[in-house]
């Protein structure tokens, strides 16, 4: 087991080391204070946070709805939810354009007001991050026996009360997992944002887009900015993500 675990860790850590190796540490300070980078990082954190909140609000009910489905319908619905994961992000961006763009399914009114806005960034991030929450919560639901819910019902509790006091607290670890994955994915989102929302400093140019752009002129600086993103993500995740061992 241990050699494999180390090999697995190396798959992640060697590229990180490679990235670190390309950065002159002197650059790091200057970068974080560079206004473009700071703006992009701020925008990324803000949009990823909102997208994560949306993912919770939309993804949890969706997971419950999926869980309530049966048979083939459920299998298909479950696979449909994974689509944003399978679609290459650029194609995902195109699909978002076809749906929410100016000439998209929802028409000019909606599309026109979304185009090239921060809202579009949030929508793109929500699109790509949603599957993580749905999958995490749905598999946690599938692992539940329903025994506690049944007992709660014999005690006279309404559906809402059972949901709020029995089911959701028990889903705590799954929610944390889903939210952390969603946040990380939203933070790293690049292709769909670029394709659907564009790239304008302070409005739609998130940190990954800034990194991509910086790379054209200064690969070292791009690597440094990536590292700052990684560092921020590590801090956020380490603080927010403590999968609690659910008591029996």
């Amino acid at each position, binding site marked *: 087991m241990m050699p494999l675990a180390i090999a697995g860790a190396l798959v992640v850590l060697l590229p990180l080391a490679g990235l670190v190796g390309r950065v002159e540490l002197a650059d790091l300070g200057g970068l974080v204070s560079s206004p473009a980078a700071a703006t992009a990082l701020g925008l990324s954190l803000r949009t990823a946070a909102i997208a994560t909140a949306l993912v919770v609000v939309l993804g949890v009910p969706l997971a419950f709805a999926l869980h309530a489905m049966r048979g083939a319908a459920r299998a298909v619905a479950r696979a449909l939810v994974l689509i944003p994961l399978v679609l290459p992000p650029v194609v995902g961006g195109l699909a978002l354009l076809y749906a929410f763009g100016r000439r998209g399914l929802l028409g000019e009114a909606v599309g026109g007001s979304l185009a090239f806005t921060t809202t579009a960034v949030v929508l793109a991030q929500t699109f790509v991050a949603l599957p993580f929450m749905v999958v995490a919560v749905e598999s946690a639901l599938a692992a539940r026996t329903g025994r506690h819910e049944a007992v709660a019902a*014999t005690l*006279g509790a309404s559906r809402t009360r059972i949901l709020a006091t029995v089911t959701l*607290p028990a889903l705590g670890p799954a929610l944390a997992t889903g939210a952390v994955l969603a946040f990380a994915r939203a933070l790293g989102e690049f292709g769909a944002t670029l394709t659907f929302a564009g790239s304008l400093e302070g409005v739609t140019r998130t940190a990954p887009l800034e990194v991509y752009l910086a790379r054209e002129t200064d690969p070292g600086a791009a690597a440094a900015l990536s590292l700052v993103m990684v560092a921020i993500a590590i801090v956020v995740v380490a603080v927010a993500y403590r999968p609690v061992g659910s008591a029996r």
Partner: protein
Amino acid sequence: MTPDAMTPGAMTLDCHVVVQPRRVDARLTLATGRTLVLLGANGAGKSTVLEAIAGLVPLSDGHVSLDGRPLADARTSTPARERGIGLLSQDDALFPTMSVRDNVAFGPRSRGASRAAARATADDWLARVGLDGCGDRRPGELSGGQARRVAIARALAAEPRVLLLDEPFAGLDVGAASEVRALISSLLKERTAVVTTHDALDAYAFADDVAVVEGGRVVEAGAASEVLTRPRTAFAARMAARVLVVGTMRGGALVTDAGVRVPVTGGPGAGRRAAVAARPAAVALEGDEGPRAPGRAWIAEHVTALEPRGDEVRVHGTSLAADVDPADAALLSLGDRIAFGVPAGLDAYPLTPS
């Protein structure tokens, strides 16, 4: 139950529980305010019957109705939360994410009590099951018997119209069992309740009616005194801490299938199947050969088990049992052939309907 007690009125719990995959097909009727104790071997279907009544297991067939209102049949089912039927399940199924107090307060809260009132109620119930001061713990931090008591408090605090208790005293220590038995016994006085148990004491403590389940079917049912003192199956007899002698009435005596003649009082007409039930303490024991005391009918059986029980040893034969002095039991070995002396003049009762 006797045909009389079974008359379905408007105010009854009336059910025919069929759960195919568990091979259960049991009929029960219980008048409002009465307590039915359900006896049966492991796997007989007791829990299944309770869970079906509570709405936790769907019926394959049959029906459940309460006070004339249908609650479930093979196609429709009133949700558990609307049935007003509380269930203490065999597994405690405490909510692991809530404190012990919140577990017990769950029922009152669900019925609309304020948070403060519900907590006060919960603390009250916790005290009544002997767990004051445990309210702030998590269920995972309790001993087995403590968890069981919390589950009991939770079920009682919800104050349902009908209470179903699945082995309420399993795992409780002697003191707690006797206290909780008294508590439940007093609560059940005004309440419709079904209680499963493996302990005859429970049946004596609070049963109005007793039903015996075997292989998913109710094989014996009726008023507690009737079923406990006049058991018709070996299992029911064992539950009532009695042994059963079965035979055919012939000339005012009960003649066993092996041909032993047991003088009895009463009993049905000649040719009918009948039984007498004796307490093991009243059964005498002698060697298979040799002199035998008069006033008893002697039935020879092999010793199948010797069970030390405090001051006495219960000697089990293939169908009979006798409590004897340890000194006497020490002379016996498994497989020995001995004679069980059943007292003459026991009350005989019919095994088949007339």
